[in-house]
């Protein structure tokens, strides 16, 4: 278990992270979401020990790690940094051999790992000829060296096209049996992978919880789209205005009503009693809308 207690980070006058508490359970997948500059990378760098917090502590399995503990922790850690130019002159196999020696893990398992990330056929080709997606697979493969129990991935799908994102997420699904901390500003794409979402904004945790908990926490309005029946005499808008304590907009022959989560049931029950309603469609706010609203 990783626990952050009152962790903050300052760069001179800039407060990249305001004091925050966070607990990541063993085997949990945590998605860290936020706009660029919200403190995601600072948080992840502190998590992997690349950066010291300006205040607070990072506890690994309940204690502040010393030098030797950090070494042990790092052997059980896989990290994918946000920006990296891999060694263009080396092949994928030689790159992984280099990192395996640094980690002190068995290089004999590299062929299996390359197979796992779909690079077995290209293992002996220089990285200079690799596509962005293939380089991300090499990056993921180095993070998986030694079968770490914790994976920290900083913007792993950044720069990938939709096909590349799909392939990368499929790979991640195969390594699900471990703790994963995953940052992205495109988290809606990967929200189904994670157990909890931590929304950062201006260095603070704005929301933390499951997708459902975030919806409840934020109480964003539900959009009810009503198609009036042909014989509707035009009084429907007035009736809806009386029924809903929210905005009612008539547009292109449809009526759109924004209703709060708390008012939703009362509104729908009332809607059943109204005449002139041909069809009703309910749109829940998307996770992206929820997160953008928050961050």
């Amino acid at each position: 278990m990783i626990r952050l207690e009152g962790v903050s980070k300052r760069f001179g006058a800039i407060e990249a992270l305001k004091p925050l508490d966070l607990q990541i359970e063993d085997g949990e997948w945590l998605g860290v979401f936020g706009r660029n500059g919200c403190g995601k990378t600072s948080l992840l760098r502190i998590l992997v020990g690349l950066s010291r917090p300006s205040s607070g502590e990072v506890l690994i399995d309940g204690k502040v790690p010393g030098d030797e503990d950090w070494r042990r922790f790092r052997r059980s850690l896989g990290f994918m940094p946000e920006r990296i130019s891999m060694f263009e002159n080396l092949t994928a196999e030689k790159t992984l051999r280099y990192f395996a020696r640094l980690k002190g893990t068995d290089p004999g398992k590299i062929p299996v790992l390359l197979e796992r990330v779909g690079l077995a056929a290209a293992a002996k080709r220089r990285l200079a000829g690799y596509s962005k997606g293939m380089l991300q697979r090499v990056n993921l493969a180095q993070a998986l060296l030694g079968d770490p129990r914790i994976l920290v991935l900083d913007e792993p799908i950044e720069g990938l096209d939709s096909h590349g994102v799909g392939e990368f997420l499929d790979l991640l699904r195969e390594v699900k049996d471990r703790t994963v901390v995953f940052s992205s500003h495109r988290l809606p794409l990967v929200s189904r992978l994670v157990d909890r979402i931590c929304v950062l904004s201006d260095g603070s945790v704005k929301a933390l919880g499951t997708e459902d908990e975030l919806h409840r926490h934020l109480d964003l309005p539900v959009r009810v789209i009503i198609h009036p029946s042909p014989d509707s005499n035009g009084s429907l808008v007035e009736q809806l205005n009386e029924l809903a304590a929210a905005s009612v907009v008539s547009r292109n022959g449809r009526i759109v009503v924004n209703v709060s989560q708390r008012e939703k049931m009362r509104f729908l029950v009332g809607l059943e009693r109204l005449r002139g309603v041909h069809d009703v469609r309910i749109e829940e706010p998307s996770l992206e809308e929820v997160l953008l609203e928050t961050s």
Partner: protein
Amino acid sequence: MRRADVVWTIAKKELSDRLRNHWVWTVSVLVLVSSLAIAFLGSAPVGVVGVTGSGAVMASIMNLSVYLVPLLALVMGAGAIIDEKKRGVLDLILSYPVSSGEYFLGTFVGYVFALSIALIASFVPTGVVLHWTSGIDIREYSLLLALVLGLGVAFLALSFLISILSRDHGRSVASSVLVWIVAVFVFDLVLVGVLVAYPGEIPTSAFGALLLLNPADVFRLLCFSWVGSAASPLGLATVAAPFNVAALTAVLTAWAVLPLLVSHRLFHRRLSMDKLV
């Protein structure tokens, strides 16, 4: 044992990267061609073309080394650390069970090996040719080569310091070239200016001490003191009081070790403060 493995793994990777660098081999060939040219054409101004006496050849090669070896070392090391940080590789490696000290030492050792191979590749063929043609003493030439390596390592350590203090590769190269110009040209010119301005007023011991402030001059003094054939002091070394060889060796070693220790300290401090680059 594990720590030594890490240092050696990083050193081998750096060595391999440096040896792929065409610039290193270009300078190495330049040193080779220049030293052979000096050996054959060194006496042209006095009407003799051909291999000259071994003493003059040794002195010429020593002078060539003072100009080219610091340049090779400084430009080679200009991208050390800073390039890896820019590429994101430094962050990745330090997320492994690797300390900043192990990374720093491994990188430096790799550079030292690469520089040594480049210098040996240019100096050894020259030495063989000169041994056959002008009969230079192999033992003395080997001693000169050892001092050349020491000079290179001292300037390599300075280049690491410059790299860590610089914000990007371009500035690091520019600062390295500036340091080279000061060490190889400006420093001695300033001292000559002082001698001319205050004739007879500066004691030779004080003057000798001033020469120790420049590793290029320490190398010259060591060559004059240690390598017999090059013992016809030229330039400013004639003004300085004679030095003990062990003391000069200690000073050249200090020129390699102190910048390295300071740069490691700065590297560690900047990493912990997230101020590197």
